[in-house]
């Protein structure tokens, strides 16, 4: 195991803990996005570039955007019968 992998594993653990410990939903979404970015780097370092592509886009961009949109939608408080 190289130093790079050790570093990325530690970063993954730190970022994952950060997601769990952040209580404000908006911050949690951003923490999750950062965790996704680190996971993508980890997959890339583990020579799985196709998984890294998927994680990078889905975990770092698509999913956080959907969460942010949901939070915005809740805040805007569209009323429905």
């Amino acid at each position, binding site marked *: *195991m190289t130093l790079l992998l050790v570093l990325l594993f530690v970063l993954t653990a730190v970022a994952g803990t950060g997601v769990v410990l952040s209580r404000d939903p908006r911050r949690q979404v951003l923490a999750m996005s950062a965790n996704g970015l680190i996971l993508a780097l980890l997959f890339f370092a583990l020579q799985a570039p*196709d998984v890294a592509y998927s994680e990078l*886009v889905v975990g770092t*961009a698509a999913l956080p955007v*959907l969460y942010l949109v949901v939070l915005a939608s809740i805040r*805007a408080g569209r009323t429905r019968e």
Partner: protein
Amino acid sequence: MTPRLRLVLLALALACIAPALPAVIGALPVFGSHPLPYGDIINRLAPAERHVTNMVSAVNFDYRGFDTLGEEMMLFVAVTGTAVLLRGTRGEAITALPATVPGRQIPPHSEALVLTARWFAPVTILFGIYVVLHATVTPGGGFQGGVIIASGLLLLYLGEGYAGWRRFMRNGPLDAIEGGGAAAYALAGFGPMLVGAQYLQNVLPLGSMKLLLSGGLMVVVNASVAFAVAGGFGILFVEFLEETRAEDPTQ
């Protein structure tokens, strides 16, 4: 559930799991080892049998193509369900007005954001198309390329604003791209049956290795996955973002 009860549950669970933990960790394969033979067999066989250099695509779109059909349908059903749920309660009308929260102003679009998004959106979409086209040659494929294209669509939203974005993110074409891709995958499986082969059997000419059109049926299947994924994520973004719009007063 009170915090005390939760802690008791945690202690109980730990008491059950903890004694076995060292044994399980000790029995794990060494880091980086791959004890199962499947990967090595594919690496040895796929280049000769299918003329491709990306073994992941060979597994996804050919050797286990039927499994990918199942995943494709999962995505299709998930996106359809989201669209039905959200459109069902909201209606199909499109409003250009953003919903507002009392006491909070909507900040104007910053020029730096618009410029950055306009620079990166076309490049991102182009890169997505590149990843799709090189599915059988380099890492990546229909799904990866499709989601990269979809993230380029998000950048377009950041650059152009909602109204401008919706001018080309139309419901009809997006639905057609998503549904057409999923249908093309399922139908591509029936093609080989017309000549007496099995469902999804790779009967097309395989082409020469390292060329874009290598892999036979994989090229067709990969393209349909790319359309379904890019369209599906596009629909998701549109349906979710439409939820942040103000309700149409005429409705």
